[in-house]
């Protein structure tokens, strides 16, 4: 059961060969057994999950059908889910029980997908290794000395270890794609505005986007049909016709034009990752695709631009944690200012504080033009590079991350080194484009490698087709870590 795809699970449920309660019990047992080793989940609530599963089974008994009715899912602990503790990986929200559902949670509930639990993550989604979580680091199921990537590291590890058939993630600078790559699963960050941010705890609002994480592209396509949709409560949610993201899965790839930006294959790319990505591209040529060499000249600026814009937005968004309306409050303080300062000093971890302070600085009087405005102008140049590139190709490919998963602790002391783990993913968020990571092999250390596929705005169905055809020809996405 643990190795069944979402489509197979849905068929088993539809044929009455299993029930949602039975499925959830199996996954909960596996979570109970594996979570002490991997720390992929922050909260598990067996009774609540089984109640949701029973409700799904009752809906089916009443004659209801639905593509994923009764199929369980795990949610990144950034999504508010009514009645569930929702921590965002922070001490600040360690005891916060959400009083409402995020739009993504509402959509999953409407589809009849029980929640298996809330997955671990970097604190407030700020990190690339899952080591900034207040609830401790997540271990990579392929090698427990390695990080799973971040910030959606708990979701990635949980899917890789088959503790859940699929999970939600969020991606502000690579937080779905980089951990998907490092754990050998498939993850999709949709076009900005396709999945509602309502109830998704804000980090950098102009970049944050939720999306699916699962073993295969086909799974992700089915999940996109659930997650995507207009929501008036998110001011940047896009009002579009509903799409069937599975519609193009079986299209042949003959004539596909793949753009290969030379900036993605530079000196910082590890040789073993480069070899796996080259092999994947060779497979695409066998499938009938053509490759086009191109350039995204401003890519090198994406990390600096991101580390102005994201902290600036974070410093504003996180000002809400003041110890008054919800969350942590320091036990002792002299006056109101002291209460704010101690609450925030004690409630936030080191990386979050660093980013709030950088953001505060770049927005402070006298520095706005030099930093924030300059970064916004460069953001346009980065987006224009992609617009130019998509005149010559249908999708862009390259590595998702420059290396395989690094060792726990290896980059913890140097924030800048950690930030460079996202050099290939950040530009996609700045431009607002959809991007995905697809497993394409292993490095010399036996840790997974991800192929990044970047599409033009709203081309998710085509990207999923491109990924699915590769997955029909290869089996990297079906490999599972041993010893679990």
């Amino acid at each position, binding site marked *: 059961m643990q190795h069944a795809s979402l489509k197979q699970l849905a068929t088993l449920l539809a044929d009455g060969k299993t029930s949602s309660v039975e499925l959830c019990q199996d996954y909960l047992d596996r979570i109970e057994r594996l979570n002490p080793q991997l720390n992929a989940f922050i909260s598990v609530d067996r009774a609540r999950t089984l109640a949701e599963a029973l409700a799904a089974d009752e809906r089916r008994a009443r004659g209801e059908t639905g593509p994923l009715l009764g199929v369980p899912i795990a949610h990144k602990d950034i999504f508010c889910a009514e009645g569930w503790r929702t921590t965002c990986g922070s001490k600040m929200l360690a005891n916060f*029980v959400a*009083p409402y559902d995020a739009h993504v949670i509402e959509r999953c509930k409407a589809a009849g997908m029980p929640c298996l639990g809330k997955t671990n993550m970097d604190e407030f989604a700020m990190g690339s290794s899952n080591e900034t979580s207040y609830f401790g680091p997540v271990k990579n199921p392929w090698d427990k000395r390695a990080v799973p990537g971040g910030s959606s590291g708990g979701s990635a590890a949980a899917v890789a270890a088959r503790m859940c058939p699929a999970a939600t993630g969020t991606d502000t600078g690579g937080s779905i794609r980089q951990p998907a790559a490092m754990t050998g699963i498939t993850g999709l960050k949709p*076009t*900005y*505005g396709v999945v509602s941010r309502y109830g998704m705890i804000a980090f950098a609002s*102009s*970049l944050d986007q939720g999306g699916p994480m699962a073993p295969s592209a086909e799974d992700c396509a089915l999940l996109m049909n659930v997650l995507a949709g207009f929501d008036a409560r998110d*001011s*940047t949610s896009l*009002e579009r016709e509903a799409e069937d993201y599975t519609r193009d899965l079986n299209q042949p790839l003959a004539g596909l034009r793949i753009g290969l930006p030379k900036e993605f294959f530079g000196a910082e790319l590890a040789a073993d990752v480069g070899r796996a990505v080259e092999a994947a591209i060779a497979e695409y040529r066998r499938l009938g695709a053509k490759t086009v060499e191109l350039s995204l000249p401003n890519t*090198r*600026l994406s990390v*600096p631009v991101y*580390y102005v814009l994201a902290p600036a937005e974070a*410093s504003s968004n996180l*000002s809400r944690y*003041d110890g*008054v*309306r*919800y*969350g*942590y*409050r320091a036990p002792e303080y*002299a*006056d*109101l200012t*002291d*209460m704010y*300062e*101690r609450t*925030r*000093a004690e409630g*936030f971890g080191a990386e979050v*504080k*660093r980013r*709030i*302070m*950088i953001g*505060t*600085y*770049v927005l402070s009087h006298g520095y706005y033009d*030099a*930093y924030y*405005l*300059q*970064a*916004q*102008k*460069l*953001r*346009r*140049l980065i*987006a224009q590079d992609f617009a130019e590139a998509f005149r010559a190709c249908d999708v862009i490919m390259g590595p998702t991350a420059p290396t395989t998963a690094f060792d726990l602790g290896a980059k913890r002391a*140097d*924030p*800048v080194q950690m*930030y460079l783990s996202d050099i290939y993913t950040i530009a996609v968020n700045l431009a*607002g*484009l959809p991007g995905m990571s697809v497993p394409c092999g292993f490095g010399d250390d036996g840790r997974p490698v991800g192929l990044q596929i970047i599409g033009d*705005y709203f081309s998710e169905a085509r990207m999923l087709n491109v990924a699915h055809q590769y997955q029909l020809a290869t089996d990297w996405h079906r490999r599972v870590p041993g010893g679990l």
Partner: protein
Amino acid sequence: MSLSIDDIKRIAHLARIRVDAEETARYQAQLNGILGLIEQMQAVDTAGIEPMAHARDVQQRLREDAVTETDRREAFQAVAPQVEAGLYLVPKVIE
């Protein structure tokens, strides 16, 4: 440019984050490292380029001027650190 110890103290206060002397020194080194990374931006001439605030140019939507929220004060205050009689309590600010 690089941030001094006094700059760090000022930024921390603006951000309402209490820092002790040892942390101040650590933040100084780390924030200067991050600013070093950011400085690469300054070498690019961006004259005439329109700043991009959002990935997609969308118009702000307006909604009907009608009540859409129900009163959920009790549920929302249940997660507050300190409430009394429907009010959020904070340290005294007016003498």
